[in-house]
């Protein structure tokens, strides 16, 4: 048992600041445990969003010592000893209160992505290797930490121009489904704004599920856009073939 000091951002909207609390810690404690102790004994109105406490639901996203993370997965013994632990809300989204941010924009973006669209005569046979490829993207828990850290959304607030890494991952899962027949390349090049990503890989670094967002989702999708709009040979090939191949890996 030792005491650790936390500086927690308290406030609403743009008004607020860090408030310090001391917490008696125990072995194996994570940041979320400590904040719930604060809530229980020192500040019953401390606003925190959390659910599963097992890194499976993606609710408790915040920034600890400036780093976007899930609070339920961030152990105190991994943070520098003797230093104050700073806990702040995700910066890319408007603050509702304390550590809770308004992430509703993400849900609006999702609606603009054409859903899974199988051919009417599909036989529903899928190879395990296709499942494994899609599975990397489908394990996303929608914590929105990748959205939080993305420069386009965080620093430039270009939410009307770019869907963000989370939805590149979602589109990649759909585009790589061997039985899907919808075409999302025009969406990617247009309102989804994939061209704005300059592949700094910050999103990949913060993903708690270890999804290779940049390498496995965004770059292959960028290649599809380039193929379609800028590369004359495949364009000619598509014209001759009269249809777009959807059955292979990107």
């Amino acid at each position: 048992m030792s005491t650790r000091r936390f500086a927690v951002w308290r406030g609403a909207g743009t008004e607020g600041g860090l408030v310090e609390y001391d917490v008696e810690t125990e072995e194996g404690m994570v940041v979320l445990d400590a904040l719930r102790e604060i809530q229980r004994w020192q500040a019953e109105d401390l606003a925190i969003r959390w659910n599963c406490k097992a890194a499976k639901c993606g609710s408790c996203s915040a920034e600890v010592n400036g780093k976007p993370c899930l609070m339920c997965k961030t152990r105190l013994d991994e943070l520098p000893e003797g230093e104050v632990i700073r806990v702040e809300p995700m910066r890319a989204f408007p603050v509702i209160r304390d550590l809770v941010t308004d992430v509703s924009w993400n849900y609006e973006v999702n609606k603009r992505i054409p859903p899974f669209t199988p051919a009417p005569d599909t036989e529903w046979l899928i190879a395990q290797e296709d499942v494994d490829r899609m599975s990397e993207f489908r394990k996303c828990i929608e914590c929105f930490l990748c959205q939080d850290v993305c420069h386009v959304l965080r620093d430039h607030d270009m939410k009307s121009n770019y869907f963000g890494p989370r939805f590149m991952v979602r589109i990649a899962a759909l585009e790589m489904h061997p039985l899907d027949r919808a075409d999302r390349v025009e969406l990617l090049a247009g309102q989804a704004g994939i061209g704005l990503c300059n592949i700094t890989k910050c999103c990949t670094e913060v993903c708690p599920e270890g999804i290779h967002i940049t390498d496995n989702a965004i770059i292959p999708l960028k290649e599809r856009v380039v193929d379609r709009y800028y590369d004359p040979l495949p364009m000619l090939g598509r014209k001759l073939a009269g249809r777009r191949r959807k059955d292979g890996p990107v």
Partner: protein
Amino acid sequence: MSADAAYELHEYDVIVIGAGGAGLRAAIESAANGAKTALICKSLLGKAHTVMAEGGVAAALGNVEAEDSWQTHFQDTLFGGKYLNNWRMAELHAKEAPDRVRELEQWGGVFDRTPDGRMSQRAFGGHTYRRLVHIGDRTGLELIRTLQDRGIHQGIDVFMECTVTRLLKDGDRVCGAFGYWRTTGEFVVFKAKSIVLATGGLGKGWRITSNSWEYTGDGHALGFEAGAELVDMEFVQFHPTGMIWPPGVVGLLVTEAVRGEGGILRNGEGERFMERYDPKRMELSTRDVVARAIYTEVTEGRGSPRGGVFLDVTHLSPSLVKKRLPSMYSQFMDLAGVDITRKPMEVWPTCHYAMGGIKVDAETGASRVPGLFATGECSGGMHGANRLGGNSLSDLLVFGKRTGEGAALHAREAEAPRVDPAQVAAAAAEMVGYLDGPGEDPFRLHTELQDTMHENVGIFRTRDGLAQALVALEELRRRAKNLRIASGAREYNPGWHLCRELQALVLVTEAVTRAALLRTESRGAHSRLDFPATDDDWGDHNVVVTKGEDGMRVERRDVVKVAELEPLVAARKAAERA
């Protein structure tokens, strides 16, 4: 009306309260039937506890073992439920689960495959054949995300982070709901012709639980207060394997898929103790049996160093463990610093699932209150005395669909809802009242409630313990009327939210305790030390709890049977005796 009691008003054909798998599936079906539908949830969409269902969804597709059939799935479900299940529900569930899973795949759900490209199926406790369709150990996430991505294109209005505190009535029927936005604390009223309760469980009544803060028995309590019957409330499932360390994650679920993939249970002396409790099924015995076995080993002094037992997969290849159980691997690595491919896990039973819930019509999910429906964990009947792993995801698909359809069809015929302003004013006054400190501290009262249930209404029960619990609950219920918070802030204030949630919890835990007191036998998840035997007469009866003139009424009711299914049930009983 005073300014702090102001509210916004919405009107729908159907409102669905709760957005886990059952609520989402119900809302999709309601909208597909042309009803104007709202989906209301306490958390963000896609965060409900369905994501914690890891092992798979049970459906007799016969992809891996062709001998499987709906008949065997039905028999397994009744054997697991110790024959207290509503037979018609178990029949519909077994027959329709395969179609519901195929439909999920057609909506974009992705599951692990057989070598010839069909959906693969894994073994699970109590299932005769390999039956669980799965994707690694995150099947619930796949299910909720698939439904979510389907639902957002159906024209359903979603009210996220919105809590319903009361149902509104017009004579006998329900006509709407009162609630508040968690984010702002402002009030909201929904007028509706049909209401579907899909709020999940009540695990937060116990100290050690796999459930998150959300599972406070809201739907059970809303239904009960509106006049619905609660059935099988004495049966609370303790999942055999919850984490035991570190303290912050005590109770966190360790999926049954660990045992499905070959995990072995050993006590502190290294003995594979399930040989003494169920030599035929061993680790894949039903959850009630395995939970009691672990409890018994530890209380008789054969526990692990931290007071649980060992769950071991170190004999399996590390690559297989990481492929088949990836989230368990990272859960133990990240939270406990244990590499489960090299060291055994330590586990202890955790309060996981309510078999009991609102008594519903099998075909439509209708309760006895006109316009009120229920589905998923907050409904009762499907699982009897003990639920089989994998049967909850199939339950919520099969009955989510049926209930959504039932609610939409009811709304077509129903008259326009009329809301009584006095009921709205009373509901608003209750919530405003909690802001008017000082009074009882909600966090303290919650801890006392959990301790009471943990000590007296856990895996093993006695008349004395249950009677003591009732006395304590009576006192807690009285004190809960005086819950207050110090801060008057209504925006995202967890203390304020808990004041209301505790009203539901004190009600549902009392229903559990009263039902447990009446059932003087041991069966499934209900074990009485003072009545250790299973009693055949009780095997034909459910316990039903209803709201009486002065307090709860608890009574025996005949199990819902189906004559044509008698031969199947008789055959299974004979096979078990042999």
